[in-house]
């Protein structure tokens, strides 16, 4: 092996001062007579030093608003689940795992049967349950519809109409979610009775209107102007939720 090759292999250890005395002395002896390897050392040391000098500032990335409180909610939610009796504590992750498994299996299944509304409803119902469980929590702040629309455009390039909060129905979040045919905007609402509603907007997708019940949730699917809307909510609707559902269906495809 040539000396230059040896230097290349030991360069990082040398710059990090982690080489033992014997190989270090041999390497330095080579550097004395090799301009090319001295340049390589200078470049690597330059990159290392700049990063280390700025490391503290680089680590100080300001947290986006809400991230800390959402993570704290996750911690509290987890602590609450941990305090449940043993069988219930085991049941919570099991149910979540089953939901995720169904989601994955239905996503794979859907590659072969893209036209199945039942599969689409199953996927989005699983996503609805997962997102509310993991990202919304017990007492979410109410969000402004215009700000959510701007965020979806800015971060993901989506231009959709987000129905604003009304009496009895609050806009509590929006995310980018994955289903079998790609990524989709997921807008989340909480009704006054504590029940959750999700609106998914599938651009460039056409479906025949359907009304399905999957995993204890109702999925209403409709299409307008080459965009399909899916509204996922609880199957056992109270009077207030019927109003909320009507409002969402009227408002979403405006």
């Amino acid at each position: 092996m040539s000396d230059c090759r040896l230097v290349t292999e030991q360069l990082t250890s040398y710059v990090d001062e982690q080489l033992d005395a014997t190989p270090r002395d041999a390497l330095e002896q080579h550097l004395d007579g090799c301009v090319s390897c001295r340049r390589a050392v200078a470049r690597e040391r330059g990159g290392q030093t700049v990063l280390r000098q700025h490391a503290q500032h680089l680590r100080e990335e300001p947290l986006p608003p809400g991230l800390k409180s959402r993570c704290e909610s996750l911690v509290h939610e987890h602590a609450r689940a941990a305090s449940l009796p043993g069988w219930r504590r085991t049941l919570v992750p099991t149910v979540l795992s089953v939901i995720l498994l169904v989601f994955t299996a239905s996503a794979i299944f859907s590659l072969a049967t893209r036209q199945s509304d039942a599969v689409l409803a199953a996927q989005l119902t699983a996503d609805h349950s997962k997102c509310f469980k993991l990202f919304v929590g017990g007492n979410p702040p109410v969000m402004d519809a215009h700000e959510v629309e701007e965020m979806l455009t800015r971060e993901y390039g989506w231009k959709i109409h987000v129905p604003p909060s009304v009496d009895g129905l609050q806009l509590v979040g929006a995310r980018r979610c994955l289903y079998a045919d790609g990524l989709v905007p997921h807008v989340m609402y909480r009704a006054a009775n504590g029940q959750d509603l999700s609106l998914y907007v599938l651009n460039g997708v056409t479906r025949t209107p359907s009304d399905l019940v999957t995993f204890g949730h109702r999925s209403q699917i409709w299409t307008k102007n080459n965009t399909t809307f899916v509204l996922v909510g609880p199957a056992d609707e109270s009077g207030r939720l019927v109003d909320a559902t009507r409002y969402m269906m009227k408002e979403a495809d405006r």
Partner: protein
Amino acid sequence: MFGRRQRAAPDTFSNEVLGYLEPLYATAMRLTRNRADAEDLVQDTMVRALRFRDRFEPGTNLRAWLYTILHNTWRNRIRDTAREATDVDSERIEELASTADGPAEVETPEQVLIRSTMDADLKEALDGLPDAFRQAVWLRDVEEFSYAEIAKMLDVPIGTVMSRISRGRRQLYEKLTQAKTDAQIHVSR
């Protein structure tokens, strides 16, 4: 058989995990280069850390464990969305890098570079590195993890980690010196 499993006191573990939120987010930002993705990634990391807390061995490095979860989660997500496929092709990256790493005849003195580099320039130069190199230099020089810890986080051999650190540092240096040379030419015109 159905006895309660041993686990750390909830508050201590959770508080320690929450204490790493800011550095995790800074790392997620450099991984994803996108605020929304970084935010999702940190939340997913928290969810997994809490769910799998029984797998954490008390007395070992919690920070390294969290960073391993963060990087595993990101790798899975990239695989799921089939984005940035070349990212995991380390052979190709090493190959590309070796052709780009030509001789540098003109060198800016190291100290001038360090003194005059602004955080924003450095972030831009970092974001311009191939993903595999950016991850390696970040974990080594900003987060100060050992080669072995980084190898575990990135799921690659230690030799690959050292090679990526080396290439990453040199490319970063070249980007910064090139940017300064370009700026000087621009000013003198």
